[in-house]
Structures are given as C-alpha cells and as structure tokens.
C-alpha cells in the first residue's frame, strides 16, 4: 500500500445516483490523499486544502477503530500502545465529537487478559465513553470466544452478535470469526443469519442500517481469506433498505466499494499495515520504515445525515 501524504480522505456516499466509474476514479485519488465528495450524484473532487476540506456535519457522528492488536511487538510496530493512544488523541481532536466508538475486532493479538485490559484502559481515556465491539479472530483464540463474550458480550446473542439503535440508525454487530472451515473464508453461520433476518423484519425501509463485523462482508481477496462465505445471504435480508453501510476491519487498510444500496468500507489498523491484496507472498504485517508507519494507520470518522440517505466516512491517518 502506497504511503499517503495527506491525512484526510472524505467519502460522501449518496446512494441515490452514484456514478460507479467516477467512484472508482475517486478511489484512485484516495491513495494520494485527495478529497472526494459525491453530491447529488455528481462526483466532485477537491485538493486537501480546498473548499471541500471542511468537516461533514450530520445528525449522528461516531468513530470506527480496528485491529489494535494489543500485544503485537514486532516490526513495523514495536509499540502498539503508543499508536492506539495516538488514535485516541486523533478521536478527541475531531472537529465534531463522536458520540461513541466502534471497534471492529482484533482488539488483542493473542487473546491474553492483559491485552484486553490494556485496550480498555487506553480507550477509557477517550472522550467518547461508549465503545461497541465485535470480535476478530485474534480475540477468540483457544476458547471459542468465551473470554471475549464475558468481557464485551454481556447483552449479545449466540457467539456475540447484537443490534442497537442510535438516533434512528439501526446498528448490527456480527461475528464472522468463529467455526471457520478448512479452505474457507469468514463465516456467519445459520443461527446468526436467522437472527439477522428476524432482527430487521420490523424496521421500515427508510431506516439507515449500519452493519459492522471484523472480516469484510464482501470478497476483497479470497486467496487470503478476505471475505465471508455466507455474507450474500446476510445482505439479501437488507436489500429493501435504502441505506446500508457495512464497516469492517481485518485487512489493515482502507478500502471502499458500492454495490447497489450497500456501501462497504474497511478501516485501517491502529497497529500495523498489511499489504494490498496479492501484492506480497502473504498477508503478514507489512514492514515499513518507522517514519512511514503512522501514515498507514488510522481511524474512520462516520457521519450520518438523515434525509440525504448519505453517509460520510472520513479516514484519517495517525500522522
């Protein structure tokens, strides 16, 4: 992944009339730190210092962080505590204070109690006090997620899935890191899918839906297991909704895709970057120079504006 020079990229996804080709072009610019805004179906781009650099305002603002991998201590990041603290500083410095934090998994590196304790301690220092989690595969090692659920899954169902509402937006936290089959991808499983179908049944189609899970719910790169085998089934239950946003982690880099009514977005890690799909022999940690590291880590600030059926996701690096 190319190092980004700027520290702010904005995507304002309007689901009414996105120009797919224009969107992809926008993606290409994203790598160099441009700002992309879709307004009324027309793609506009601005330089980072340009007129569009002002912060998106909406009815609901929250921030996504991911893959803090507490306990990891190898190149390129021997100090994941420092980078998570930098993420907290970044969150507290956002122009619109987020109401809560979503952590999309791999909280810990090895599921050790002290690793979870460490993350909890650091996140307590953040201005938003409410944190919602979903587990990553590193959080459920050796115990099928028992410890994770004891810590973070008090009001959850099954392996730790749940939903909640904030200011008219319906949030759904899914678990796709357990019971993985040889040769396969992430898995939601029949029980969770059944719950999901039931969970959204009563909602009106104008309810904005935000789904968050660790492994991407679209196939980013099957060879590296970057996808979820039964995600299509899950998304089929969300087809009738006008605005669906899927937030994932796992791949330690930002990526976006729009498919019909669904906008997919992955957040950067706060610990270490991973290579672009297929650009390295394996998805192992990318070893980068110390001065490049924070430019490849980050947080994602999300703003929801009712009525516009649009959601703005702003990725900021930790530089």
């Amino acid at each position, binding site marked *: 992944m190319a190092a980004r020079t700027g520290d702010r990229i904005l995507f304002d996804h309007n689901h009414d009339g996105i120009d797919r080709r224009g969107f992809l072009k926008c993606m290409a610019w994203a790598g160099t730190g441009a700002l992309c805004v879709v307004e009324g179906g027309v793609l506009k781009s601005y330089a980072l210092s340009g007129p569009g650099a002002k912060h998106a305002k909406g009815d609901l603002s929250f921030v996504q962080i991911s893959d803090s991998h507490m306990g*990891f201590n*190898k*190149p390129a990041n021997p100090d994941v505590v420092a980078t998570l603290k930098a993420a907290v500083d970044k969150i507290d410095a956002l122009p619109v204070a987020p109401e809560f934090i979503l952590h999309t998994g791999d909280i810990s*590196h*090895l*599921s050790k109690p002290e690793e979870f304790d460490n993350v909890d301690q650091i996140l307590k220092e953040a201005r938003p006090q409410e944190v919602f989690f979903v587990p990553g*595969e*590193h959080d459920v*090692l*050796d115990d099928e997620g028992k410890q994770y659920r004891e810590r973070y899954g008090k009001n959850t169902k099954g392996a730790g899935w749940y939903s909640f509402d904030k200011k008219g937006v319906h949030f759904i936290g899914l678990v796709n890191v357990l019971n*993985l*089959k*040889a*040769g*396969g*991808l992430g898995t939601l499983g029949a029980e969770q899918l059944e719950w999901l179908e039931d969970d959204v049944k009563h909602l009106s189609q104008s309810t904005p839906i935000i789904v968050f899970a660790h492994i991407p719910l679209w196939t980013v790169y099957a*060879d*590296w*297991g970057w996808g979820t085998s039964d995600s299509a089934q899950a998304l089929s239950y969300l087809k009738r909704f006008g605005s669906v946003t899927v937030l994932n982690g796992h791949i330690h880099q930002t990526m976006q895709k729009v498919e019909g009514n669904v906008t997919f977005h992955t957040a950067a890690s706060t610990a270490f970057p991973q290579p672009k799909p297929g650009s390295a*022999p*394996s*998805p*192992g*940690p990318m070893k980068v120079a110390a001065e490049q590291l924070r430019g490849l880590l980050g947080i994602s600030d999300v703003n929801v504006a009712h009525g516009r059926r649009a959601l703005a996701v702003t990725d900021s690096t930790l530089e």
Partner: protein
Amino acid sequence: MRRHHWKFAVLLLLALLVAPGSGKLSNFSARAETAPSVAEVKIDNFTFEPQALKVKAGTTITWTNRDDIPHTVVSSDFLFKSKALDTDDKFTFAPTKPGTYSYFCSIHPKMTGKVIVE
C-alpha cells in the same frame, strides 16, 4: 593392563553372541528402521511447508510457526489440535495409525496441509 584384558573379554563375548546367526544381525537393523523418527513442518508466510508430509507411523511431527502472526494446527477431524502458536512456538503430534490426515489453521483457514502416514 588388567583393564585391557577385561575389555578384550567383553568384545569376545559380544562377538560370540552376534556371530552364530547373521539373521540376528538383520533383525537388529530392521528394528532400527521402524524406530520412532522425527519430521518437521515449518509455518512461513501463511503456508505449511511441506504442504504434504509423508511419514511412517509413530513419527513425531513438529510444527514451528515462523510468522509474526499466530497460527494453529488443527486436523479436519479434530484428531489433533494445537493451541494458538505465537512466533517460534512449536506443536508436536505423533500419528500412530496409517492414513491421510488433512489439517488447517483455524485462524486462517485458507492455510491447509496434510500428513500422509504409511
């Protein structure tokens, strides 16, 4: 001097024991072939190397994780199952029954391998 005599006596005794049947000698070497041996699988760049390992029954297989990311070694039928292996951690298993054992990393299920036991 006395010690030399004693050593000579032992050698003579051994020669007498072994000499009567060359058959006994070959029995002895046949046993050496089936004696427990060892084999290694390295986990590197999210792959098991060798991907397919052929061993004799009773061979102790050691998997070593050389990645910066934890992996597991789990047989598809759960006959063997390691804990999460951090960098340089090892897992050993000695299959006793002939057959083909497919296994994978339960954290990164795209990683698969097999052990063929003869």
